[in-house]
């Protein structure tokens, strides 16, 4: 077996960015895209300041969080550990980009060149339209490795078979080799020198190792990395709001959640009163609008059928599959007025809603999404929004005379449940910590989940449940409020609270004969 890994000696790296240039040269990446780059960390205060440079890129993880989530199976892991992307299969949904805690994946939608306007000759020669609109990242220079091995060369030893970044390193800071060979350069270094891996607590098993100090026999301090909530001058390495999923992706969570919640609540209400078939039609339209929006977002829209290729492990594929019976049974139920078909559609819709929640949970690159508490919260919000819309519809169509009190009671329960799940989700950050920006976004009243808003909505719903004479207006307002609050929350969650993981330097490397110092995790706090 072979497992290729990179070892970066933080004591040797001088931050010259030669590896960055070599990578751009070897892989012709677009302006602004750096598969390999070197971060610049600083700790301490003038005049006692430490600075360290940290090469990062795709970590070719042991259990990559981009692999299982890929709906098209475009991402694969080879026998030798290299994580690959099939540009011909990828639909450009960028789910992998938000699932990577190392911010190693990019999507470029249109050609661009270093000097604007016309491509320079070397750029024009190597233009690859197949790489537009799909996910891209460090390939570990897989072509150099494969060609070199075919000629009997050893990657990491023979520079022609070694990734361009490692081959170009001016100081020997970057080494690459086979971890499964106990005598390889990297195995020897890791046996002898103290080292760490970034974000090890997330469990990806990244394959870039960082050397920071002397011999391994000296007892290594095993401190956790101190979070620094207000890092000065470290904006480039701190979490920032992801740009891969914008309002179009948010719309799928907004309308998909509300639509499936509405269908389920309609069929539930239909057990006690005549089914409001109009509501089921609206529910299907909402889900369709959401899916249309997310279709607008993907980089290769005409390959969207590839979304069905990975139901085995990807919650995005599963979501797509759940949509089929939802629309199939739902459409037939609406045409025939069959309760049985309607219930089948409602159940499919609930599966769809659950898949949506799990999509966020599996997006390991975004701390505000990957919280376990997100799953019940998203499901409860979808049902609450559904009940809210149904309440408004009932008021508009006059069905409120029959179902008003029941709907109001359901709203009370669902609003309370949603707020309870929200509180649980929100307090989850006290254990794990979060990028500092997350708390500010979530606690903003515009994000819909403030206690005041929910208390007011619950009070309105209670009034509607116990006072029949005031039912019409109060129920409609409570229902509408429940919907708007859920929509605001999901929109904020996807587009504003979606800070990336950022980077962390677990230990400041020792300088010369000195000792290493505590590292830094900038832009994080326990809130």
């Amino acid at each position, binding site marked *: 077996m072979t497992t290729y890994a990179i070892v970066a000696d933080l004591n040797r790296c001088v931050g010259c960015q030669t590896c960055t240039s070599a990578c751009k040269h070897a892989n012709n990446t677009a302006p602004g895209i750096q598969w390999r780059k070197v971060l610049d960390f600083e700790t301490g205060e*003038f005049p006692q300041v430490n600075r360290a440079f940290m090469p990062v890129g795709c970590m070719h993880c042991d259990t990559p969080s981009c692999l299982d989530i890929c709906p098209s199976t475009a991402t694969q892991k080879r026998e030798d550990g290299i994580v690959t992307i099939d540009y011909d299969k990828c639909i450009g949904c960028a789910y992998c980009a938000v699932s990577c805690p190392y911010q190693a994946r990019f999507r470029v939608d249109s050609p661009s060149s270093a000097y604007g306007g016309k491509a320079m000759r070397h750029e024009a020669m190597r233009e690859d339209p197949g790489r537009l609109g799909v996910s891209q990242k460090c390939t570990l220079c897989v072509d150099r490795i494969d060609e070199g091995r075919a000629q009997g060369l050893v990657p990491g030893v023979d520079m022609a078979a070694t990734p361009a970044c490692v081959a170009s390193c001016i100081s020997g800071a970057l080494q690459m080799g086979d971890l499964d060979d106990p005598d390889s350069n990297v195995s020897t270094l890791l046996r002898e020198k103290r080292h760490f891996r970034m974000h090890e607590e997330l469990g990806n098993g990244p394959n870039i190792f960082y050397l920071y100090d002397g011999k391994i026999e000296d007892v290594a301090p095993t401190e956790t990395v101190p979070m620094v909530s207000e890092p000065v001058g470290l904006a480039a390495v701190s979490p920032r709001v992801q740009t891969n999923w914008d309002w179009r992706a948010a719309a799928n969570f907004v309308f998909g959640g509300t639509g499936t919640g509405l269908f389920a609540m309609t069929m539930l209400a239909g057990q006690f009163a005549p089914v409001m078939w109009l509501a089921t039609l609206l529910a299907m339209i909402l889900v369709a609008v959401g899916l249309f929006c997310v279709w607008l977002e993907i980089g290769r829209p005409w390959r969207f059928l590839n979304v069905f290729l990975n139901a085995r492990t990807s919650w995005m594929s599963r979501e797509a599959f759940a949509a089929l019976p939802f629309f199939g049974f739902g459409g037939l139920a609406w045409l025939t007025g069959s309760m049985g078909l309607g219930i089948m559609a409602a159940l499919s819709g609930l599966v769809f809603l659950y898949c949506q929640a799990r999509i966020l949970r599996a997006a390991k690159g975004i701390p505000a999404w990957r919280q376990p508490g997100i799953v019940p919260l998203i499901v409860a919000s979808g049902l609450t929004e559904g009940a809210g819309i149904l309440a408004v519809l009932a008021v508009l169509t006059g069905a409120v005379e029959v179902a008003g009190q029941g709907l109001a009671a359901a709203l009370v329960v669902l609003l309370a449940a949603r707020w309870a799940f929200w509180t649980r989700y929100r307090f989850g950050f006290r254990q794990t910590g979060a990028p500092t920006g997350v708390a500010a976004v979530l606690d903003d009243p515009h994000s819909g989940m403030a206690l005041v808003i929910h208390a007011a909505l619950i009070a309105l719903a209670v009034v509607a449940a116990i006072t029949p004479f005031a039912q019409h207006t109060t129920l409609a307002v409570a229902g509408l409020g429940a919907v708007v609050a859920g929509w605001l929350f999901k929109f904020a969650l996807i587009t504003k609270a979606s800070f990336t993981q950022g980077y962390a330097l677990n230990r400041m490397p020792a300088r010369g004969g000195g000792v290493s110092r505590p590292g830094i995790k900038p832009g994080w706090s326990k809130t």
Partner: protein
Amino acid sequence: VMMNPAAAAKLGLCEGERVEVYSPTGTTTGAVILRHGIRPDTLLMIGQFDHWKTPFAKDLKTPSMNGLTPMSLELTDATGSGADLVRVAIRRLEGKR
């Protein structure tokens, strides 16, 4: 324009704020970058020659040392120009962040 956080705090400047730097002979503008690793009495700018050939660099609105002090060939060696040191003053550009 890289500067020390303590010096920036004294002047009421924050990270990313647009500032004007001026010398007896010229002026240039840029955004504040805070780093602890720089002396409090010193500003650092890496921009030179106004990047007139590279449109992207022009759009980055980076400061240019050449706006502050003319290049002297007598003081230039193979590693760069030794004339890139000049006494300057700094002020915030109001309303521009």
